[in-house]
């Protein structure tokens, strides 16, 4: 099941710079997208979401951009902090369905 893809398994950025995490999806019926952050031995923690009727949602240092025509979304973290180091999962939902589809995750490392 490759409906949600995160093609970069890892990303390393310097503290204070921007982190950009990318996600692609194949099912055009997805209408709600979420980003989760996961530390080792913990459950995914909800970060930010976006509905398909929007193209941008911002919450503090985190901004999610959605490009429906390209079936692409991205998470921007600025400025990046060492505490942001974790695995980031993109997830997608069909309206009315509950089975959230996850990407494989991108491990972000923010270097001091």
């Amino acid at each position, binding site marked *: 099941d490759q409906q949600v893809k995160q093609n970069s398994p890892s990303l390393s950025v310097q503290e204070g710079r921007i982190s950009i995490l990318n996600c692609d999806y194949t099912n055009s019926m997805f209408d*709600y997208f*979420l980003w*989760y952050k996961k530390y080792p*031995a*913990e*459950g*995914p*923690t*909800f970060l930010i*979401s976006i509905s398909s009727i929007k193209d941008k949602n911002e919450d503090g240092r985190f901004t999610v951009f959605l490009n429906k025509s390209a079936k692409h979304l991205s998470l921007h973290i600025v400025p990046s902090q060492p505490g942001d180091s974790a695995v980031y*999962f993109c997830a997608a*939902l069909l309206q009315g*369905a*509950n*089975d*959230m*589809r*996850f*990407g*494989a*995750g991108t491990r972000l490392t923010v270097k001091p």
Partner: protein
Amino acid sequence: EPEVTQTPSHQVTQMGQEVILRCVPISNHLYFYWYRQILGQKVEFLVSFYNNEISEKSEIFDDQFSVERPDGSNFTLKIRSTKLEDSAMYFCASSGVQETQYFGPGTRLLVL
């Protein structure tokens, strides 16, 4: 802040034994989910539960699996006869009327 809790944090069992994984969802949430993550793989949807019945399930959720909400607070996942390949992290999640699902810390199941 309300959170999803799961017990036990770790479970070791012999192949063929039954296990019950327990979850306490966020108290005013209506939808409940189980996901699993096999080591090194993506988070996979197992089942969703609403109004005391399964609303969706994946192909992973075969007859060996069952879910139950035995009282007003707990949500359980039972694996009747565990197999080696059931070894994984199992995450419970819950959501209210919105789509955002909030995850518990997970139970690490090891089948020997």
